[in-house]
């Protein structure tokens, strides 16, 4: 018998846009939302949007968002009866899940044992192989050190891929094409693995060239029901980090769709999985698919699935955690229309995508038909240097792929962030590349088109230089309107600098 327990208050052990996303699901369900924050996040949007907020400690994740003791203390102080881990941080940490449960709280995620089994890329590979699902050639255990990595890589044959066992979001992942680069790549992968996941286990597998990255969203409840919510195409990646995702995939055939979706449900059922989860696959150009890993948590790109299926995944997670049955069957779920997501990062595409934390000076929101923005910043917020560079997820929905892309392009033309550099221009250009427009791309897409993507028209550059000189001229001649009270400038003063060209009828 599954015990049912209504959740009244949820502590969100995360920050930024995903914490805001979870808070929204809480609001929709009439559940109180408790935020936690580190020093630089006192004024973060997730704090401002919560019902209650608790301070954790200094900026360092170890002393704040990764600190289990402090998180449990905040949960206790707030009287929360459940914890949602978001993604990243402790979301796939079985020890955390166990500690939450031991404290008498509901962990909004799978059983800790399942995290151990499936949360580790290595463990999941073993289970998948046992279930007869095809996996990418590689080793099934963590590497001792760089020397072992080199030894195994030579055996499999270059190119190879180093991967953090606890990984996600491209962190702790390095592809290595030549022997000489392996040792330093191993070091960097391990360092990132520690700082991102508190787990230094790194393994190696054969690098499948030019594949599609397809993943299947599943939902399982505590009563043994598992459904899939179809696939997401996540092949637009840079440094193994997803940048643009869409659903449905423009590449896979109906047969492949059925194949990967059935495989996902089969695997999830095999381990008695409950919660939202994702089965990631590589699909090659011949539509062969390989199981890659399972993510036992919510995924950054979950909104595109929500938009094409109409199901709110965070609300579903919460209901599952309460012990409720799913309430719908596989045949109730349909893909309707098309959705695209662009991940908005604080990084400078023109300078090797360097991270770009800093103060948000101004922001223009993309709005209107078909647009959803899951945002974590606001004008005046100091984007900290201590955490992931994701600022927001921009999602566009349309009746079909063409409309979804058109709307995304429109939203990108409206969206503007001043202060931190962002990859918004990168997105706009990437979506214009004919290979993308026609849906013919694989994981090499960005490398292949990077030069074209980063081109800036000569005309725009000319206008930029002209505008800069003019602005300088206006400032020097004090024709800039003065700031009014509250730091807001008076747009109605345009007559100072603008001439009207009246039309005579």
């Amino acid at each position, binding site marked *: 018998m599954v015990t049912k327990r209504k959740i009244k208050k949820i502590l969100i052990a995360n920050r930024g846009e995903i914490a805001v996303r979870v808070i929204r699901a809480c609001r929709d369900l009439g559940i109180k939302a408790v935020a936690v924050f580190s020093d630089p996040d006192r004024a973060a949007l997730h704090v401002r949007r919560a019902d209650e907020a608790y301070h954790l400690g200094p900026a360092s994740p170890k002393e704040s968002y990764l600190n289990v003791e402090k998180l449990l203390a905040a949960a206790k102080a707030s009287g929360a009866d459940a914890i949602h881990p978001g993604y990243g941080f402790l979301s796939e940490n079985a020890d955390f899940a166990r500690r939450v449960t031991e404290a008498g709280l509901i962990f909004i995620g799978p059983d800790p044992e399942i995290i151990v089994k499936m949360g580790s890329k290595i463990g999941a590979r073993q289970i998948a192989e046992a279930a007869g699902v095809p996996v990418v050639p590689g080793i099934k255990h963590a590497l001792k050190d760089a020397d072992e990595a080199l030894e195994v890589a030579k055996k499999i044959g270059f190119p190879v891929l180093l991967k953090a066992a606890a990984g996600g979001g491209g962190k702790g992942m390095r592809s290595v094409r030549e022997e000489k680069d392996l040792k330093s790549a191993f070091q960097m992968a391990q360092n990132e693995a520690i700082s991102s996941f508190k787990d230094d286990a790194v393994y190696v597998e054969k690098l499948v060239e030019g594949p599609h990255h397809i993943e299947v969203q599943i939902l399982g409840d505590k009563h043994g029901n598992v459904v899939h919510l179809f696939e997401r195409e996540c092949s637009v990646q840079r440094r193994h980090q997803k940048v643009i995702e869409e659903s449905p995939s423009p590449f896979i055939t109906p047969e492949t769709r059925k194949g990967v979706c059935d495989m996902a449900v089969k695997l999830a059922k095999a381990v008695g999985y409950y919660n939202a989860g994702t089965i990631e696959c590589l699909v090659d150009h011949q539509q062969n698919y390989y199981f890659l890993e399972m993510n036992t948590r919510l995924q950054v790109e979950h909104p595109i699935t929500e938009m094409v299926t109409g199901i709110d995944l965070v609300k579903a997670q919460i209901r599952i955690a309460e012990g409720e049955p799913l309430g719908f069957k596989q045949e109730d779920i349909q893909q309707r229309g098309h959705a695209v997501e662009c991940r908005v990062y604080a990084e400078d595409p023109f300078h090797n995508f360097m991270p770009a934390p800093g103060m948000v000076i101004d922001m223009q929101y993309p709005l209107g038909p078909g647009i959803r923005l899951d945002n974590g910043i606001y004008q005046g917020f100091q984007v900290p240097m201590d955490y992931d560079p994701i600022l927001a997820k921009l999602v566009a929905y349309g009746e079909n792929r063409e409309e979804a892309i058109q709307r995304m392009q429109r939203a990108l033309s409206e969206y*503007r962030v001043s202060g931190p550099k962002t990859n918004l*221009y990168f997105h706009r250009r990437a979506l214009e590349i004919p290979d993308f427009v026609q849906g013919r791309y694989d994981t090499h897409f960005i490398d292949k088109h990077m030069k074209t993507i980063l081109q800036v028209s000569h005309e725009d550059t000319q*206008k930029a*230089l002209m505008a*800069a000189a003019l602005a*300088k001229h206006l400032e020097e001649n004090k024709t800039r309107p003065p700031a009014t009270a509250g730091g807001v400038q008076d747009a109605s*003063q345009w007559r100072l600098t603008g001439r009207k060209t009246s039309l005579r009828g």
Partner: protein
Amino acid sequence: MSRVYTVLFEEKEHQVEVKSVGGLYEVTLDGVTRSFSPLLAKGSLYSFLIDGSEVMEADVIFRQDNCELNLRNVPYRLEVFDPRRRAVSQSEAAGGHGLITAPMPGKIVDVRVAVGEKVEKGQALVVIEAMKMQNELAAAIDGVVKEISAKVGEAVESGQKLLLVEKED
């Protein structure tokens, strides 16, 4: 009234003439003249009507002559100055291309060279970490390390001086 400004962009100097004509501004660059009707819509955001009707917006932030301009989310790092008032650009005065500064706020995680060491263009000298990503900062010229101010473990601000390479004579 007309004035010529020097705009430094990607190591090239451009001369831009700005002329006030009856409330509008005629701006000339490389022989192309456009008329601008500017309006400060909010904060540092200019809304321009170009050549009568074309709408263009740009965020323009000055710190003295240093200018950060954001046009359609393309960030332009410029210097804009009156050539009568200054002959040498700031970045050249500050050490030209041999100077390595922090490109963003972050933490120094590695310094791979010592003072006096010979380095090659493209060689990684300093590793800085921000937003959980490690980034290598490389030499822009061949030369010798003259000065190191970066310390491993230290937090640095954007633009902070980290290391100086000098050309060998």
